[in-house]
């Protein structure tokens, strides 16, 4: 049996900020344009061009700093990170080095039933590089590589955690929490396939009880939660295996190959770049005063934790329900808008419908809540009709379908048009029941002989005869009265 190992993980995340324009030029950041159509003179680094900071990107950083309780620097500095690569047009990346825009802060993650607070080191603004299109990526550069500079200059916020994570599950929980937060505060679209949210994981292991950190290897560019988990799991096993076989871990940068599920070394510490960071003389220090922070804070939505508390307090939801409904700002807003329509007494029913019927349907059609065809007011209107007993749950599902497919604009419209109103009126029901009793003497006899099942069968008949509209509770009561 091998000795026990402790896993230490820190994560660096590149979050693409959802600004209209790039961080230092006026080009659009829209994803998916033809190569190099969204690259202007600044992005392709013509001689003589200069960067001009997009204040929108700074506002995103301020939002993040406020959301994680970090310190927003009154003065931070853009620095040049110098290295040569064909998709890096200037031969340097404008980033922040010694003085980042945000320092510290924390993020609470949920791992199973446990909450854990992860400390953040810093968050800094920088520009993205372009992309190299190689032969194998399906382009027509036979024997050559192409350069697409559409992404060059897209604003990034690089968020660095302390090495507070101790398993791949925690790493994923952290990444998920961060992903939810940056979307919640509206600074990132969170589209991982398009590279809007990419993680690097710094992984090391050490014998349990050892205080000194082991040598770390950095897994680059993980753009899905599953890859993050798989890569860390593989890397941890590899490091433990290497050490248990008497080997040493060399500091290195590694890549994860999803096909093989393995990590492999890209460069060792010896070939590590000397980036020759120095303050960018083309940009003035970034000065953020209290007024600016105050303005951004005023526009910041209530944060997830506070929103959860308010859902519990305002609607009497369970902490589980509150957590699910605050998974994203859109979902929480949707829920509250539905309750506003349905009425507060129906809050729990709303929660059940949003988390049940609605979530299942969205999931089935692979849609986000933001793409939901059903407006929260429509759902709330439907739930109001359940609450006042106009609709049974079963009929309500039919109405839901009609609203989903856009056949009608409101539950009331469907109810009117299709005559779905539940029949609770005693007079109407009595007539129905009298006919029923006359037509089913056998069942009547069975019931009178003490067979409770016969009553259920009679209720079923009543529902059938009313095409589901009879209020089953009322029918049962009337049957007992008549047969009693």
């Amino acid at each position, binding site marked *: 049996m091998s000795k026990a190992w402790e896993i230490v993980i820190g994560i660096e995340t590149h979050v693409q900020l959802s600004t209209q324009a790039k961080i230092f030029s006026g080009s659009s950041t829209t994803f998916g344009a033809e190569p190099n159509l969204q690259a202007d003179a600044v992005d392709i680094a013509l001689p*003589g061009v*200069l960067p001009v900071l997009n204040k929108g990107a700074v506002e995103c950083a301020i939002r993040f700093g406020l959301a994680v309780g970090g310190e927003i620097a009154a003065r931070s500095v853009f620095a040049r990170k110098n290295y*040569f690569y064909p998709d890096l*047009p200037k*031969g340097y990346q404008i980033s922040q080095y010694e003085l980042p825009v945000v320092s510290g802060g924390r993020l609470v993650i949920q791992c199973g039933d446990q909450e854990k607070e992860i400390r953040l080191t810093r968050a800094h603004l920088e520009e993205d590089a372009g992309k190299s299109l190689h032969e194998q990526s399906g382009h027509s550069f036979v024997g050559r590589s192409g*350069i697409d500079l559409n992404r060059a200059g897209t604003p990034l916020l690089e968020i660095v955690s302390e090495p507070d994570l101790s398993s791949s599950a925690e790493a994923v929980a952290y990444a998920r929490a961060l992903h939810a937060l940056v979307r919640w505060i509206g600074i990132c679209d969170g589209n991982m396939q398009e590279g809007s949210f990419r993680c690097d994981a710094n992984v090391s292991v050490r014998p349990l009880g050892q205080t000194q950190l082991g040598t770390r290897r950095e897994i680059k560019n993980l753009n899905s939660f599953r890859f993050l988990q798989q890569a860390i799991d593989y890397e941890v096993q590899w490091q433990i295996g290497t050490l248990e076989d008497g080997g040493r871990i060399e500091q290195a940068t590694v890549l994860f190959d999803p096909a093989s599920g393995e990590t492999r070394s890209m460069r060792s510490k010896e070939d590590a770049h000397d980036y*020759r960071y120095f303050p960018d*003389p*083309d940009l*003035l220090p970034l000065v953020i005063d209290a007024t600016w922070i105050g303005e951004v804070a005023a526009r910041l939505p209530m944060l997830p934790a506070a929103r959860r508390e308010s859902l519990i307090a305002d609607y009497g939801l369970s902490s589980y329900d509150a957590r699910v409904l605050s998974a994203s700002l859109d979902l929480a807003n949707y829920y509250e808008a539905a309750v506003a329509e349905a009425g507060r007494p129906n809050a729990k029913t709303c929660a059940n419908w949003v988390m049940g019927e609605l979530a299942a349907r969205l999931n089935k059609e692979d849609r986000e809540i933001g793409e939901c065809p059903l407006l929260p007011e429509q759902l709330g209107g439907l739930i109001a009709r359940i609450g006042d007993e106009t609709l049974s749950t079963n009929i309500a599902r039919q109405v839901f379908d009609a609203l989903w497919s856009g056949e009608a604009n409101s539950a009331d419209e469907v109810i009117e048009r299709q005559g779905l109103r539940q029949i609770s009126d005693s007079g109407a029901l009595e007539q129905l029941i009298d006919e029923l009793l006359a037509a089913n003497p056998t069942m009547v006899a069975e019931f009178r002989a003490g067979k409770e099942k016969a009553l259920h069968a009679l209720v079923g008949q009543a529902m059938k005869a009313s095409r589901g509209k009879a209020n089953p509770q009322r029918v049962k009561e009337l049957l007992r009265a008549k047969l009693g």
Partner: protein
Amino acid sequence: MIERSLHEMAQALAGKEISSVELTGLYLERIARHNPLLNAFLTVDAERSLAQARQADERLARGEQTALTGIPIAHKDIFCARDWRTTCGSKMLGNFVSPYDASVIERFQAAGAVLLGKTNMDEFAMGSSNETSFYGPVRNPWDSTCVPGGSSGGSAAAVAARLSPAATGTDTGGSIRQPAALCGLSGMKPTYGVISRYGMIAFASSLDQAGPLARSAADCALLLNTMAGFDERDSTSLDRPPEDYTRELASDGGTQPLRGIRIGLPEEFFAGGCDQEVMQLVEQAIAEYRKLGAETVVLSLPNMRLSVAAYYVIAPAEASSNLARFDGVRYGYRAPEYDDLNEMYSRTRAQGFGAEVKRRILIGTYVLSHGYYDAYYRQAQRIRRLIAQDFAAAFRQCDMIVGPTSPSTAFKLGEKAADPVQMYLSDIYTIAVNLAGLPGLSIPCGFARGLPAGLQLIGNYFSEAKLLNVAHRYQQVTHWHQARPDAFA
């Protein structure tokens, strides 16, 4: 006509004494005649210039004249000009035709000035003699065996030889003032941030500043009016209300117009190291200033002796990064043969850059390297602050500082080319001004052994108008600025 001031030329154009096409043609002819010797121009495009001149004439005919409408101006080949080849004196950009206009070019175009051509310069503005140009050295019109100074040597030679009424230059460590001194011209480097750097190919971003090269301070003021102004495309551009830099020139101060002006004489400028004859001319100019009513105050800039060392850390550091974009990938020169990416980079840059540029890239890369940054770059930035503090202290005692621009007159071609340190020392009086971001001006103050010498005036931030006025007063009572090299009548 070629001896007239810019203001007089504008009057001649307004009065239909000459058209812009004729004026431009006159200069194009002079360029055709004299440029083969001087090599001051790298690109001349007569057709394009004359087309602009025709447009200027139409503007003049409509009565839409500005101070520079129809006047031909030569631009240092460091300014990107749309559809013009823009080489920066380098093989690296030998085939680069700019798709856009620099802010400075735009402003001259908007004023209706005619782009007369692009002038030779030290490669990427790195040099003090114009000998590092890939396109060959420029010769000094006063003595064709001498250098014109650098890096704006082509602009200076062009104006001195009357191949252009005026020209633009850039000054990172003295590149306007030193060639102005060596060619007998007036040349100004304004306060850092007064003229937009957008479209001006960067050498050392925190030091680079464009400015005018002309025959008189008054002409410089007129050019500065067009060149200066806030530009949101340059984050270091200063957002200040527009100024009329000629506003103090017209005032009549009587016989002692400079009464009340205190001129600071830093010990360090007069402590030896300067050519004796040049120093005598500077002393005479100072005596002239006393006659004009100025007082003189001896003071000290104790950290100035460190300026060359600090400069040769900061400027190469910034340059090593600024020039990284010349990699053969997107534009400019690319080595014809290579086996892989690294070889493409190294051959492109080995073949595309000249020796001085490579030297500075190496120095800059070294001083920014891990483990050396604190000892060099950070230390140099500290010195830079100390130098700025020295000037701030000095300007509490005086209104401006006066001294020599260059320690010598024009030296022989090849004389210092093999000794970079000697070459670097030719900017010993000008570099501190860039490190502090202050405005500086060089005006001619006489001749030593037949070659012009320059007097440097350094002012506090934004004192351009005052500096120009003080220079102008001197030029009203002296005639050095009107001298013309005989061969270029």
